[in-house]
């Protein structure tokens, strides 16, 4: 964790509302088709309706704003992902679909912002650190799930837990940012169905044959 990050204010406080307001403003600007690199701080504060000095009270620069978005979203996504990690031998395809669908739907409203976070990670080391934390958390969680499922006999024993988890978590990341961020509802449903098949067939089905 970077020492330059300010602590996230408790939800509901004025500070937190102001901060959230700026992130929402950026969400709107991205939804209009602007790219984050092209957005000026002036444009962001105009959309947020706050002063320049207030903006800089919360965010030292545009990179700090992206890190702040990760701090907001991380716990929410991790909580949705936890339901997958807790899956046991009683899981069936419908149950898996509900869990994966919830992960995708939770992430969806933030997908454009998060796509910018991941893109910025390629040149901003502090942002990259946040990305690595988030991905590390998901990969470790899925790895533990695979290992536990292999011991209990409901996950294909042949799979390498760490490497399989790494491929799958990065697949989520890329598909969510490149495809789902711009997809309509019907397309998202079809993608969730296809993902459910892929995960079911990869992890669970071979252990039932």
């Amino acid at each position, binding site marked *: 964790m970077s020492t330059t990050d300010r602590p996230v204010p408790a939800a509901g406080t004025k500070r937190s509302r102001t901060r959230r307001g700026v992130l929402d403003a950026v969400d709107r600007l991205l939804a209009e088709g602007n*790219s984050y*690199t*092209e957005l000026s701080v002036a444009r962001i504060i105009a959309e947020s309706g706050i002063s320049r000095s207030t903006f800089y009270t919360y965010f030292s620069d545009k990179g700090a704003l992206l890190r702040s978005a990760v701090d907001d979203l991380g716990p929410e996504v991790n909580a949705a992902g936890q339901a997958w990690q807790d899956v046991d031998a009683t899981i069936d395809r419908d149950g898996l679909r509900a869990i994966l669908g919830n992960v995708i739907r939770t992430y969806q409203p933030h997908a454009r912002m998060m796509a*910018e976070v991941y*893109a910025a990670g*390629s*040149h901003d080391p502090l942002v990259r650190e946040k990305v690595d934390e988030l991905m590390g958390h998901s990969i470790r969680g899925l790895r533990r799930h695979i290992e536990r499922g292999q011991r209990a006999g409901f996950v*294909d024993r*042949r*799979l*390498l837990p760490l*490497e*399989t988890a*790494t*491929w*799958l978590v*990065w*697949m989520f*990341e*890329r*598909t969510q940012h*490149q*495809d789902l961020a711009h997809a309509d509802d019907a397309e998202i449903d*079809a*993608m969730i*169905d*296809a*993902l459910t*098949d*892929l995960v079911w*067939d*990869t*992890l669970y*089905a*071979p252990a039932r044959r």
Partner: protein
Amino acid sequence: MTSLTRSSGVNRTARRQEAHDKLSTALESALRAGTPFTRITVDELIEQSGVPRSTFYLYYADKSHLLRAVSSGLSSAYLEACEDWWHLPPDGTREDLRRAFDRMLESYLPHQHLLAAVIETSSYDHEVSADYRSLLELHFDEVAEHIRRGQADGSVAAHVDADHAARWITHLVERGLYEFAADAADDERERYLTAWTDIVWNALYAAAR
């Protein structure tokens, strides 16, 4: 080269190819040395390659244009390396699939820095992004076709949704190569290759065999 043949079309093509090759080598070595694409200047490329400035600007509007030209050649080579997978015979084995993926990885490795620059630049350069999108679209289509052919001959599970599965699997491959498989040490890379094979094998073929 004699002045008699200088104006022939063949030599113009050869000169253009020579400039392209020298500039492409200069660009790849700068990227390999760790210089981010945004910091590489046309001046440096001219100096490193020995290609005269006037020649550079005869063929390329700017360095993004050069990046697009170089990557388009590499993309064709990479797509060719995908053929063993996309034309995996109906009786192809897990080992055959692993060899096909190994060939894709081997084709990606020498140019990983250039391809990474394309991915990173595509987050803010519209033309690079359009090129990259069309490469991905081509990949989606080829994978979807491969799945449909396999379903017709019984080698791919009938329940797989070809178009949507193709999107997830294409992103799995693209992100894995970019994020971790290319940078991995040898033994680690073998493990990633195994996990990649097992995921795609389970997701597409295992249930049909």
